[in-house]
């Protein structure tokens, strides 16, 4: 039986992450977080969390409820401003003060609650905030190119394997899996470096789950760095290239899915001794 590489007392150091990268060779970091600290009032939710997301890799973040996974992801997506630590995109230090900042650095997020506007159409949601203007004088008077946006949305979603009856339908008329598909399609459309996903399959049935997992693989296949928060450990073991375990606001282990079992991961998550 393999013993997972773990250290339940000290936070994962940047050096050990670097070593993992060297081991794998040729991997390019897209997004790097170094010693991130986040407090909510007197409550320290993140303590020196470091993590590197590599292009084309799916990095899973697992941990018990309240471990700080969503909070960490929101630091990467610009929603929370960290109280300490550094962020680097493509090896250059950046400040993310808003979700717009993160988007401008090519980082897209699929939120746990999806963040779709339920009354807007699929195409309007995919292009929300980044609408395309019509060519010529029609664009000059502010008119949108609805046809182009519709065709483009249809193309991406078809590529992801989402079968929608209508791309003009409002997103609230879609099933949970289809909605998830729209949110992921939007992220894939705009991400240049990284996609962050918070429990994208939590509310889905098996078939729809598979569709979303296929979409996640597609994102990694496009050479994007993917961060996936999930409680579905068997799936994570199958899907992820690496598993980061968080416990009480720290990243306590960096596991190779090929070398561990679900049981091993759970032990690390809960901090059981001598797994």
């Amino acid at each position, binding site marked *: 039986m393999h013993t997972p590489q773990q250290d339940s007392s000290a936070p994962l150091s940047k050096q050990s992450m670097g070593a993992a990268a060297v081991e794998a060779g040729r991997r390019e970091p897209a997004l790097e977080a170094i010693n991130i600290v986040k407090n909510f009032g007197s409550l320290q939710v993140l303590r020196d969390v470091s993590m590197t997301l590599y292009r084309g890799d799916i990095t899973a973040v697992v941990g018990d409820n309240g471990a700080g996974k969503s909070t960490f992801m929101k630091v990467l997506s610009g929603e929370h401003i960290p109280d300490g630590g550094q962020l680097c995109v493509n090896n250059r230090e950046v400040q993310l003060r808003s979700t717009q900042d993160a988007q401008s650095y090519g980082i897209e997020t699929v939120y746990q609650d999806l963040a779709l506007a339920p009354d807007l159409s699929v195409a309007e949601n995919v292009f929300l905030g980044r609408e395309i203007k019509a060519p010529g004088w029609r664009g000059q008077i*502010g008119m949108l190119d609805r046809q182009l946006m519709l065709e483009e949305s*249809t193309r991406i979603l078809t590529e992801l394997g989402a079968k929608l009856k209508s791309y003009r339908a409002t997103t*609230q008329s879609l099933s949970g899996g289809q909605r998830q598909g729209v949110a992921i399609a939007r992220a894939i459309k705009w991400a240049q470096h990284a996609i962050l996903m918070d429990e994208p399959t939590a509310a889905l049935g098996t078939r729809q789950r598979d569709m979303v997992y296929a979409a996640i693989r597609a994102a990694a296949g496009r050479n994007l760095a993917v961060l996936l928060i999930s409680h579905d450990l068997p799936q994570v073991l199958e899907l992820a290239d690496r598993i980061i375990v968080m416990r009480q606001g720290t990243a306590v282990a960096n596991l190779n899915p090929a070398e561990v079992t679900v049981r091993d991961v759970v032990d690390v998550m809960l901090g059981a001794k001598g797994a």
Partner: protein
Amino acid sequence: MNHSSSQEALSVNTPTYDDGSTWFSRLREATAFWMFLILLGLVVLFSLISPNHAFLSVNNFFTIALNASQLVLLAVGMTFLLGAREFDLSVGANVVLSSILAARTITSLAGTPDEVAMGNYPHLGPAITAGVLVAIISGTLFGLINGLLVTKLRLSSFLVTLATTAIGLGTALVMTHGANVPDIPRVLQTEFATYRVFDMIPLPVLLSLVLVLLLWFTLAQTRFGVHTLAMGSSPDASRRAGINNARHLLKLFGLMGFLCGIAALLDISRFATTNIGGHQTDNLQAVAAAVIGGTSLFGGIASVPGTLVGTLIPVVLGTGLVIMGLDSFYQLILVGLIVIAAVYIDQRNRQLSI
């Protein structure tokens, strides 16, 4: 995929869609369409039962349009705000205050008090120009103040605009001691409010129509419109999509105020006096028009053509009742009842779709 060169005019005029629906099946889903049928039904009904079919005349039609020309501006502004899940109760107070400021500007610049009281206006041109500017600026400022209070202090627009209603009306009363501003030059009436283009279309109707078409285009076809509905549909979604909700809302309140300023101008030019007591139910009527036309009180769904129809239904009802010899005040009762029905339907639709 269908390409249509006339796509810009309507979103419902390509023959079939990717889900196989036709333009007609899509039309049937629009509240505005059904309300338009009801409006036609009312017109036919009143035409049949009015003495000598007096209801059905071009002249009566444009009288109705003239009576609706002010309200439709407020209602379209309200349509944008409701679409963004916000609200403005202070539109009537804004119209009153802006009309008083404009009227005062005109009467005090047009000549000496004695001249003005005699109906002499030596400086008519500059006075009217200044009055128009004052109405538009004060209306817009009123709206922007509402918007700033809502966005900066993060207060609900319901409470803010309830408070600014009191402040606006109070200011108007302090300025005038409750007496309307008299002696507004009649040329505003003869050359503008009652002037008929081609001897037919009243100029205020034309002005309102142009503004309504412009705003229809804005809501249905531009980024500004999409962001308005996105905000009303899900403020979180629009914020995360990089839309600055606060700034957008400020623009919407500013637009509402601007439209109140225009409505104030229509008011003083039509009646050659201010109408301090006459705008208490403007807010209700504007919301009613929007809601009747299919705009949702819960945000995210709004229709300018729907609002146009929704404005006309109560006005047609009111005119019809008068022609039938009934008191026009019944109109208000009917509007109240229609609003309750429309809001009930809106709410039920929302619950069904969750």
